[in-house]
């Protein structure tokens, strides 16, 4: 991450906080005694202040500092919210928004209004504090003598994030002790490609002016002391961090460790030196990096419109072909090209990295492994892989379940592992990567692996399979996805209620994905989830049976063959030999009860189904088609062999087939 990026992140974050603030303030305007809104305002001010001073937006932190104090008084019931306070807060909000663009107040007018606001706030604060004006620190009031200035250097190990510690919160806690300034630095920052999102590369130097003792400062780092290098030194009595010194320190911006001596020399300079030129350069840089936050509804709406456009474009192409006008054909082709690009572009907008999902699991894995007395490291790879946000939302629960299962059933307790000659610490790995038009997410552990004998015995005792059933390894493994199956001998609080794996599979197939398992005894188990990149548009094969059009997703289509309809109709066992391979087939016109227009030659489409192949027989193959998925709606809930429908160029509706479900349903009927 570059400095610009960090500041841009802060700005985005600050804008979010300000929006929340605004909401709470509007609430307060209606109901001045709303406790919740008051503490929201206080919290927002607090986090804004902390973040601002960390990223060098000194103007913001100075403004929010006293406002925070005011709201603290109100929150604690020591004072009442007045209209005057509200109006000043609103003004400050507007001002804060401007400050985000021009943090160093290059604009004179901004600077003037900043100063007058500061004065207003201060006036209010003094009023609130009443006679005890000197109790709370305010820049103009005289500071109590008991204050000391400390230099704190906090350099965490890179794995500090693994146990759920948020270093920013530590800094925030530190800042809450008094007036402070934090200077982040980067150590061992690798090249961009090698950055691991789960590692921390940031340390902080903090100059803190507080009336608390050194022990109190130490306490902030109590829980992370083993995971960081920490040094805390008193560098002087009183507040060395006055406004100007702060500015000077802030303008350093080297993002390397300055060291105690250097900082002290900046705070108490021999001669004042200004570096306005570098500040100006920085402001310029920040302006160049711009991103906007767009609400997800607007993106959804945009996606819908793009989908509509794809439909209209299909209709245009069809019309152009019918009219046989070369000029129109060219236009149609160009529109098609642009539409395709627009579609791809629109998709990338709603993609978010899998990382956003993984962060939630880090903590869970840690807590669970403690609860289960297991030693586990949770590793992630390829979490920058991006996937549609609606898919991410639906993945949370299934992935959570798989992780829990791996922790509970997969990874053994430390002594068992040692007796097996494995390292004491188990490894849980979440890996994701692109594969063609799919995203693959793998969850693997180096635990005991699935015990096939146990699975078989369980399935027999539960009546899922017959006692003398002959099954391949793969079929046995797939039994764990059967409803009502659970191999845990004991039901633990973590997993093993038997509602698990079948629900996981169903959730995943709801988003048109599938899940596979591979396992090796004592080596571990890997769950592989294959997901489409997006849910709203699929590349499909348009086929026709009778006068009804169907769309098969191209991802599951393997090959197409032509065969005499008579041969298929007269086949007694529903098997056909394709390229020397015996393949079961389904004569869809029979299964769909479509009687009209029987062709002499039919098309068999070989579909990949549960590791093997099944042929689906249709009348005609029309061609490739980009289908915009439209739900069939509540009334067709039972017909889940159709994942939806799409509107063709001629305005007719075609049904989008979910081959896995269709084959499963139809084969069940045959058996």
């Amino acid at each position: 991450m570059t400095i610009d990026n960090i500041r841009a992140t802060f700005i985005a974050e600050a804008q979010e906080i300000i929006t929340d603030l605004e909401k709470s303030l509007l609430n307060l305007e209606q109901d001045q005694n709303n406790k919740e809104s008051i503490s929201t305002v206080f919290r927002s001010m607090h986090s804004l202040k902390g973040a601002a001073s960390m990223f060098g937006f000194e103007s913001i932190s100075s403004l929010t500092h006293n406002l925070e104090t005011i709201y603290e008084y109100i929150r604690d019931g020591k004072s009442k919210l007045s209209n005057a306070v509200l109006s000043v807060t609103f003004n400050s909000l507007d001002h804060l928004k401007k400050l985000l663009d021009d943090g160093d107040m290059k604009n004179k007018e901004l600077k003037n209004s900043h100063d007058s606001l500061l004065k207003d706030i201060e006036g209010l604060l003094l009023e609130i504090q009443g006679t005890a004006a000197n109790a709370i620190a305010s820049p103009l009031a005289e500071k109590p003598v008991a204050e000391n200035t400390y230099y704190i250097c906090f350099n965490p190990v890179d794995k500090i994030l693994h146990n759920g510690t948020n270093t920013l919160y530590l800094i925030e806690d530190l800042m809450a002790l008094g007036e402070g300034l934090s200077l982040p630095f980067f150590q061992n920052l690798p090249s961009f490609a090698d950055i691991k999102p789960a590692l921390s590369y940031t340390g902080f130097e903090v100059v803190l002016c507080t009336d608390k003792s050194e022990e109190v400062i130490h306490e902030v780092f109590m829980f992370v002391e083993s995971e960081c290098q920490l040094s805390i030194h008193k560098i002087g009595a009183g507040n060395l961090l006055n406004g100007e010194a702060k500015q000077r320190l802030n303008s350093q911006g080297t993002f390397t460790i300055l060291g105690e001596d250097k900082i002290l020399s900046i705070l108490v300079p021999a001669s004042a030196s200004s570096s306005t030129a570098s500040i100006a350069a920085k402001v310029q840089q920040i302006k160049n990096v711009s991103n906007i936050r767009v609400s997800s509804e607007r993106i959804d709406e945009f996606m819908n419109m793009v989908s509509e456009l794809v439909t209209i474009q299909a209709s245009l192409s069809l019309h152009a072909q019918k009219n046989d006008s070369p000029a129109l054909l060219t236009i149609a082709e160009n529109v098609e090209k642009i539409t395709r690009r627009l579609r791809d572009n629109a998709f990338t907008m709603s993609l978010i990295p899998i990382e956003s999902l993984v962060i939630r699991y880090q903590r869970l894995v840690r807590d669970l492994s403690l609860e289960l007395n297991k030693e586990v490291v949770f590793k992630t790879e390829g979490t920058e892989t991006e996937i549609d946000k609606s898919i991410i939302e639906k993945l949370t629960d299934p992935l959570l379940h798989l992780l829990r299962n791996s922790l509970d059933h997969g990874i053994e307790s430390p002594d068992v592992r040692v007796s097996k000659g494995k390292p004491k610490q188990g490894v849980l790995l979440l890996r994701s990567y692109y594969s063609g038009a799919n995203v693959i997410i793998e969850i693997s552990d180096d635990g005991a692996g699935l015990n096939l004998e146990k699975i078989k015995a369980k399935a027999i005792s539960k009546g899922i399979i017959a006692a003398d059933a002959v099954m391949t390894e793969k079929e046995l493994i797939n039994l764990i996805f059967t409803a009502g199956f659970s191999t845990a001998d004991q039901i633990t609080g973590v997993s093993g209620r038997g509602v698990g794996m079948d629900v996981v599979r169903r959730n995943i197939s709801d988003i048109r994905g599938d899940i596979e398992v591979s396992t090796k005894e004592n080596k571990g188990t890997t769950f592989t989830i294959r997901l489409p990149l997006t849910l709203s548009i699929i590349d499909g094969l348009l086929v026709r049976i009778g006068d009804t059009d169907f769309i098969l997703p191209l991802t599951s289509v393997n090959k197409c063959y032509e065969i005499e309809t008579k041969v298929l109709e007269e086949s007694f066992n529903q098997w056909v030999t394709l390229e020397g391979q015996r393949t079961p087939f389904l004569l869809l016109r029979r299964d769909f009860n479509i009687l009209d227009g029987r062709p002499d030659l039919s098309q068999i489409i070989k579909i990949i189904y549960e590791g093997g192949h099944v042929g689906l027989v249709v009348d005609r193959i029309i061609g490739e088609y980009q289908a915009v998925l439209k739900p069939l709606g509540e009334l067709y809930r039972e017909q889940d062999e159709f994942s939806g429908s799409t509107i063709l160029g001629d305005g007719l509706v075609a049904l989008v087939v979910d081959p896995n479900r269709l084959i499963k349903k139809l084969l069940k009927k045959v058996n």
Partner: protein
Amino acid sequence: MTEAETLRSYLTFRLGDEIFAANVGKVLEILEIPQITKVPRSPEFMRGVINLRGSVLPVIDTRTKFGLPPIDDTVNTCILVISVIIGEQTVTIGATADSVQEVMEIEEKQIQAPPSIGSKFKSEFIEGMVKINEQFIMILNLDTVFSSNEASIFQEMIEKSN
């Protein structure tokens, strides 16, 4: 038009020999029969889906649903686009009718309670009856009629009454 007036207006339509009425507040529009895509393996009364200006609308064969024998579509056959509440969702569906009659105002005092005995229709599907020009018109409770997933909600009753 105020809400009270809306509530008193009913659209009447014909199915076989019977005339039914539906509150106009529930009827969004009336369509000619376009080409309908049949969804295989769906219940008999589900006629299929149509393209309603870019969204996909399921169409119910009301005759089948009401236990009447199927007939070929005529020029008068049409689809009523209605919004019904299924579960907790408001769903837009199409329902076929042999022909649409008119929109009429029915005063609340004109509406009689549905007869509990001797009717071939279950009372939960009928909101009330009204006699106009010597003809009984049945006011349907569209929510219960079309949210029921039974193949034919009236069939059983007809078989019994026969």
